[in-house]
């Protein structure tokens, strides 16, 4: 779980508190909406997270 927090901080530049909030949501609900952004930026973030071995996907906004 610390690893997930660490990666979220690295990839998004978040505070530990914010990264932990998302990590806990992932841990309890199985997923967390991390960010809403343009296709290319989301693709870049998905790629970074997957390089760290985290299961991340991007979905179209409603």
């Amino acid at each position, binding site marked *: 779980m*610390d*690893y997930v*927090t*660490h990666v979220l*901080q*690295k990839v998004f530049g978040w505070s*530990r508190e914010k990264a932990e909030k998302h990590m806990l949501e992932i841990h309890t609900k199985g997923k967390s909406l991390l960010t809403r952004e343009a*296709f290319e930026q989301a*693709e870049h973030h*998905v*790629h970074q997270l*997957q*390089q*760290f*071995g985290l*299961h*991340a*996907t*991007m*979905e*179209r906004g409603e």
Partner: protein
Amino acid sequence: MKLVERRKTALVFELREWERRVLRTVLGLYPQIPPDNFMISKSGLPAGKADEQKLHHELFAETQGGNRKLVQQFIREALADDTSASPHQPLSRFTLERARVDWLLQVLNDVRVGSWVKLGRPDEATLRKLARQPDVLPQLEVMEFCAYAQMVLLDAVGS
């Protein structure tokens, strides 16, 4: 395995001999995550972006290929057998540049997650059942050791 010295640009860890050997073995398993393991999107990509998934898998495989060479180099250099060590000297040390901590975390996580994927992505309850199967134990031990080494590294960088 424990942190024994913080330098400006590097961290120094002390390992028991068995830990050094296991770390060498575990890192030697890299990569474990199949390059086509991750999808960019579950709901599908927009029109005109269909090739992105294929490119993504190729890039993942390329990164793993580059990392594999670095891992082999790391095993040879940082975790080499110390031929001068006395048999009564059960501890060895390795130095990790701070800039490479994330890289090593990433490699360990690949081996841990990839081992889990190869076991069929078991949940916690299934993992406990699998722990009774001798043929699966080595993979579970690999996962455990990776998690342990990741924890030590994260503690060392204060995460």
